[in-house]
């Protein structure tokens, strides 16, 4: 244990060439995104994007729903560890929490970039109209973010105190991060555990609400037949769980590979199994929608699905179905291919597959809304792509920096914990 622990702490304080190179590249991308946003979109408006009739919502909103969905992974793992007591998932719970918080931050950033007047962002609070699903989303994202922060705080606190003692050079900084609550007596730890359990349980309905409300921004709009279906909310919950868990798994595999995190192979394979269990649920929701549309032959929805299957969006659709759902499922379901590399590849495919699904869910139905369908193809402009790339860089950068602040795998110290340092 001693060896493992010092290894973790060394990783925190050792800032190698790799860290600086990666951070520099990410910072460059971030600045590029910021520059294009400021020099183009902020001045000329959304005219510099490819958003036009009928595509009122495009790449930014696709990424918004994508990242809201990705944040679900944190809750899946946190609820397994803290609410159900499945202790063997504990090594990845820190990664999951950090990912949940950064994904939600990125989602909010994408909403900000999508607005015509981002300077009026606070009008959402000032003039909030409770009837609007967008306001429900503002409320539920804020609550969920609060829960994610509380979960992260109480499950990280003990490690922060430990870092405070072990790394004297950063002692002040860690004390500040603990918000002054440095009590690690058995009583305080027991209290933390109860708080964690309460919030981990609360986070489950919270997650369902978050993803359903995000779906209802689209699903409640009766003008667009492709959106206005009751399956949309369950579909969003399903996609969120699948993509969120896949992102946590992918990050764990990468962290194990490149940051030498102490995550056992068995755990990675277990997460692969769990993912293999969730993918068919998502497939089932998609199939239920598909069969309803195909059997009813309702013109508006039928033409949308024909466009998805054989039209401009066919590549995205079949990519999602084959590479995003079926192939990862096969990789994860066959024990022989469920190796660390196999699980990593499958989860990467799932994440990209769900992004493709979000494109088809958000963008394609917009073509079939008015009296006459407007069949066109939406490709984001270079400004949109730069801003998106810059925002992705923010996400990775936050993770890379946090990896140097927090021990990404909890420092195990069972003996001393019992003794109560």
């Amino acid at each position: 244990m001693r060896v493992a622990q010092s290894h973790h702490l060394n990783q925190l304080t050792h800032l190698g060439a790799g860290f600086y190179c990666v951070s520099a590249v990410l910072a460059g991308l971030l600045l590029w995104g910021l520059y294009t946003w400021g020099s183009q979109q902020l001045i000329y408006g959304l005219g510099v994007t490819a958003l036009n009739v009928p595509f009122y919502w495009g790449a930014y909103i696709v990424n918004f729903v994508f990242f809201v969905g990705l944040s679900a992974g944190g809750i899946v793992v946190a609820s397994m560890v803290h609410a159900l007591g499945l202790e063997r998932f504990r090594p990845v719970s820190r990664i999951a929490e950090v990912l949940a918080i950064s994904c939600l931050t990125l989602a909010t950033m994408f909403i900000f970039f999508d607005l015509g007047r981002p300077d009026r962002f606070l009008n959402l609070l000032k003039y909030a109209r409770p009837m609007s699903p967008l306001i429900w989303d503002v409320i539920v994202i804020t609550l969920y973010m609060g829960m994610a922060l509380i979960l992260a705080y109480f499950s990280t606190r003990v490690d922060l105190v430990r870092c405070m003692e072990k790394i004297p050079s950063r002692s002040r900084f860690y004390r500040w991060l603990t918000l002054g609550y440095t009590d690690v007596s058995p009583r305080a730890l027991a209290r933390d555990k109860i708080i964690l359990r309460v919030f981990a349980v609360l986070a489950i309905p919270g997650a369902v609400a978050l993803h359903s409300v995000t779906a209802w921004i689209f699903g409640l709009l009766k003008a667009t037949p492709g959106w206005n279906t009751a399956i949309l909310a369950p579909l969003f919950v399903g996609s969120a769980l699948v993509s969120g868990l896949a992102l946590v798994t992918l990050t764990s595999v990468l962290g194990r590979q490149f940051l030498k995190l102490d995550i056992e192979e068995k755990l990675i394979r277990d997460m692969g199994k769990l993912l293999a269990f969730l993918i068919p649920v998502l497939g089932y929701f998609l199939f239920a929608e598909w069969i309803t549309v195909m059997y009813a032959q309702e013109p508006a929805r039928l033409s949308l699905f024909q466009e998805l299957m054989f039209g401009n969006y066919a590549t995205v659709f079949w990519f999602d179905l084959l590479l995003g759902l079926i192939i990862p499922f096969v990789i994860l379901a066959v024990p022989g291919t469920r190796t660390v590399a196999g699980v990593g590849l499958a989860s990467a495919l799932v994440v990209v597959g769900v992004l493709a699904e979000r494109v088809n869910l958000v963008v394609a139905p917009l073509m079939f809304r008015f009296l006459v369908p407007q069949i066109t193809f939406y490709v984001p402009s270079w400004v949109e792509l730069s801003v998106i790339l810059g925002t992705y860089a923010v996400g990775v950068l936050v993770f890379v920096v946090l990896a140097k602040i927090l021990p990404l795998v909890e420092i195990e110290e069972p003996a001393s914990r019992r003794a109560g340092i």
Partner: protein
Amino acid sequence: MARKGMVIDLKRCIGCNACTIACKAENATPPQVFWARVLEGEVGKYPSARRVFLPVLCNHCKNAPCLEVCPTGATHQREDGVILVDYDKCIGCRACMAACPYEARYFWENGRGYFPEGLTPFEEVGYRKFQRKVVQKCTLCAHRVDNGLEPACVATCPTNCRVFGDLDDPTSPVSRLISERRGFQLRAELGTDPSVYYVQ
């Protein structure tokens, strides 16, 4: 309060787009923004093919989907049923554009006018009342209606295709037209209850 509405007689429409131009002249809307426009299509096969026209504008729905989804209340409804956008409150999220079943809403982004040389004096004065990067739409010429005039598209129509009036008053010309000639609304099955009716 009287509910303002309009009836459009499709039998009389010749597709001349005078309403489109009258709206442009009256409201000075920027390029690519058409508060009033005429959709065109063809029905039937040669030799019995014919062109059909459908003049459209904001329907000023009684149960407006755009009103429901607006997160800031920038979109609001007057007592006479007219739906307006408060440019100062709008954050440009475009939820109303996605919610409108009639594609009646527009987004003016770049602030450019019709000509590459810059804004003409007409445009300079006309665009002053708008704001960039927010949503705008047909006001049912509220500024004219409040002064006892008809909307510009109604006043201009050379074939008297459009009739404007009070939908709540059963004796008004609009109400009589609707009941006598079985007026219908666009996408009535959505339950939005538009204030713009069509007769054929």
